């Protein structure tokens, strides 16, 4: 028996680079903001759904349990869920099934992230996401995977970087109206983005969302209860999530099929048959500007490769046909990872209630979609939310009220002036109708000096080292490398030759059949020119990481390109492995020094 579930309250802290508050204190501020927004207390809460991204940010294992008191979990059923960057939106899904199942009538949803504790740079936490044996020896950093995906997306569709940069501009401008925003900037231009420092080509500094601390919370309630809490519940109409293979070098980097699968699941549940008509605003995940476009296509709101021109033409602006990230998104409000995802659900709640103040999308939107993405470019999490009016429209099968631009917008008396406030609203102002989020004193930013000099501060390093067993398939693969061979495994179920090899096929879920010696040549699927190491120290000369599809297989490997001027590298270039000398090989991915263009390619 499934019950309908609504969001009835929301709260958030400011997003700041370094918060004075501990993670628990941030969680508490957001949670009490959400409770206060719907006049509930902790006693009214039956269950707590908590999320936070990697433990390595805090060096606190059992982070869910650590945060639980600030999330209101004392003495209640409380559990932390985690799907990397997809966590914040997933927390809304967790809350939905917790309430829809009948286990709880009212649940508190809390997402917290404190990235500032990680030294020397939070990117260090992401070093652990890559394959222990086949990728970590290459010292990849998180920027690589975004740069590699962005390059392929741009190249396959022939996209203009300018069009992608308009997303960063839009979101930072939108965030200028958000009281919690870290990087709101009303006057930023595309030229600013294109002139910013190149980190890992094509990724530049202003293409990327900032490191942040912050927390967000929602209150959700079952049908029958929700209407007693508020006269304007916003219904969670559909939820979906989906995972792609863990072998990211084996994946289509141009289109996020896992997001599309999650979106279909959510739309199906919501009765949304024509998302381009029935979705009035979107909060897609935007840790990098191109990701918002990639995800809008994954959400089936644009044809493949067509979202960038929509951005260019203003379709995604707050007053466009499909407002996207009216909050300001991760690029503008900030990216405390799990909290940033849940912020997207909070924004839909405020927008669909007409409470978004300076950020309000015109035309009384009735249905929106929020999405997040994470793990190793692998998970899509999607939530569709709608007003009571949206539900009636869907139930009638009429395709709802139509896009907001077709609905004449009544002037909203509660809306703030469109120029951004020069000062954040005071705590007193936050209680007035039409100003969201309710901002109290929470989320005070520490300066670098305060952070370094804080009384009672403690430095700590987890003194743990690891020895990863290479396993059966990779062990044999590494022996092959020592002999100057690249080995794959064949699966007669799907007919693929798997590189990297595995003893089971994750699609057919059967044992693979035989070892196959594949070629030591391949094609550049995508590449980046990376100018910074994981701790953001400059790399000179730059590195050229690439995903190389291996000839004779259906798979690919992450490796570096060499013996080539970075400006001569092209997607589709034929390359070959350059091996270490026989006596110097150790049975490691580093037995291949790098790949280089085959004769006749490149320079």
């Amino acid at each position, binding site marked *: 028996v499934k019950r309908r579930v609504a969001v009835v309250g929301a709260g958030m802290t400011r997003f700041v680079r*370094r918060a*004075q*508050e*501990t993670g*628990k*204190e941030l969680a*508490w501020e957001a*949670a*009490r903001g959400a*409770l206060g927004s719907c006049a509930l*207390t*902790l*006693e009214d809460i039956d269950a707590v759904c908590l999320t936070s991204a990697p433990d*390595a940010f*805090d*060096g606190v294992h059992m982070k869910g349990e650590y945060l639980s*008191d*600030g999330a*209101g979990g*004392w*003495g209640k059923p409380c559990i932390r869920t985690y799907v990397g960057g997809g966590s914040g939106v997933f927390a809304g899904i967790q809350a939905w099934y917790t309430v829809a199942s009948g286990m709880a009538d009212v649940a508190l949803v809390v997402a917290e992230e404190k990235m500032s*504790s*990680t*030294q*020397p740079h939070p990117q*260090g*936490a992401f*070093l*652990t996401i890559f394959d*222990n*044996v086949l990728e*970590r*020896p290459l010292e990849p950093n998180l920027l690589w995977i975004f740069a590699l995906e962005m390059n392929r997306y741009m190249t396959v569709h022939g996209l203009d970087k300018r069009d992608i940069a308009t997303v960063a501009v839009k979101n930072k401008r939108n965030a200028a109206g958000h009281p919690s925003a870290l990087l709101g900037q009303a006057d930023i231009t595309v030229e600013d983005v294109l002139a910013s420092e190149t980190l890992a080509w094509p990724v530049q500094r202003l293409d990327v969302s900032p490191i942040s601390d912050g927390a967000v919370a929602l209150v959700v309630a079952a049908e029958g209860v929700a209407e007693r809490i508020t006269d304007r519940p916003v219904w969670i109409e559909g939820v979906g999530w989906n995972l792609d293979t863990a072998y990211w070098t084996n994946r289509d980097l141009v289109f996020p099929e896992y997001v599309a699968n999650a979106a279909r699941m959510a739309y199906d549940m919501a009765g949304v048959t024509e998302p381009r008509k029935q979705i009035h605003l979107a909060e897609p995940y935007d840790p990098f500007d191109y990701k918002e476009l990639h995800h809008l296509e994954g959400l089936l709101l644009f044809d493949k490769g067509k979202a960038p021109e929509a951005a260019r033409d203003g379709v995604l602006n707050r007053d466009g046909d499909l407002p996207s990230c009216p909050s300001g998104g991760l690029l503008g409000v900030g990216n405390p990872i799990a909290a940033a995802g849940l912020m997207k659900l909070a924004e839909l709640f405020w927008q669909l209630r007409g409470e978004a103040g300076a950020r309000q999308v015109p035309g009384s939107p009735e249905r929106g979609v929020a999405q997040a993405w994470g793990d190793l470019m692998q998970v899509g999490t999607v939530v569709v939310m709608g007003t009571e009016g949206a539900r009636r429209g869907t139930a009638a099968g009429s395709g709802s009220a139509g896009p907001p631009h077709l609905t004449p917008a009544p002037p909203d008396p509660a809306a703030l002036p469109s120029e951004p406030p020069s000062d954040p609203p005071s705590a007193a102002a936050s209680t007035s109708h039409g100003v969201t989020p309710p901002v109290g004193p929470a989320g005070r930013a*520490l300066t670098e000096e305060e*952070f370094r000099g*804080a*009384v*009672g*501060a*403690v*430095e*700590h*390093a*987890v003194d*743990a*080292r*690891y*020895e*990863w*067993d*290479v396993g*059966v398939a990779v*062990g044999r693969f*590494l*022996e092959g490398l020592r002999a100057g061979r690249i080995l794959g495994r064949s699966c007669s179920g799907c007919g693929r030759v798997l590189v990297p090899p595995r*003893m*089971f096929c994750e699609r057919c879920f059967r*044992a693979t059949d035989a070892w196959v010696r594949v070629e030591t040549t391949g094609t550049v699927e995508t590449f980046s020119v990376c100018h910074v190491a994981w701790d953001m120290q400059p790399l000179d000369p730059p590195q050229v990481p690439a995903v190389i599809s291996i000839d004779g297989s259906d798979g690919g490997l992450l490796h570096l390109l060499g013996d080539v001027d970075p400006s001569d590298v092209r997607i589709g270039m034929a390359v070959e492995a350059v091996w270490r000398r026989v006596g110097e090989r150790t*049975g*490691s991915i580093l037995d291949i020094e790098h790949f280089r263009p085959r004769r006749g390619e490149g320079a």
Partner: protein
Amino acid sequence: VIEKTSRPGDVRRWPGRIPVRHRYTPGRAGEVFFTALRDGGVLLGSRCTRCDMVYAPARSFCERCFAELSADVEVGPGGELASFTVVFAAVDGSPLDRPVAYGLVRLDGADTLFLHRVLDAGDEPLEIGERVEVVLRPEAERTGSILDIEGFLPVGGSTG
């Protein structure tokens, strides 16, 4: 699928570590607690009147009812040893030169327990329920750290 290892020397492992360290600032309540400890040599707790609870060290909110709290109660310096252990081995299992006692202490005026070392009280065995008193480092050496507290010294007598 599980292949028998015919050459055990070929079973290989790849070494690695996570090259990050962390810097923790103590937060809103923590800053007040550590400043008072360093400058005044006092231990501050927080009272929740609704729940009739005193938390020590101080907290900025009550985890039971979510009320906002301040560091408004001085607790200790005496207390009751609620439990203890005597540790003979280091984290890596190697023997310690001298065993170290750790205790959970209910400071006078607090409802929660406080973890710290129990200082050497001579040959008397420790007893649950006995009275202890906090020993601070000299003011000039205090930095605003939990280690500004040397530990708890048994002072004889019992609460129980």
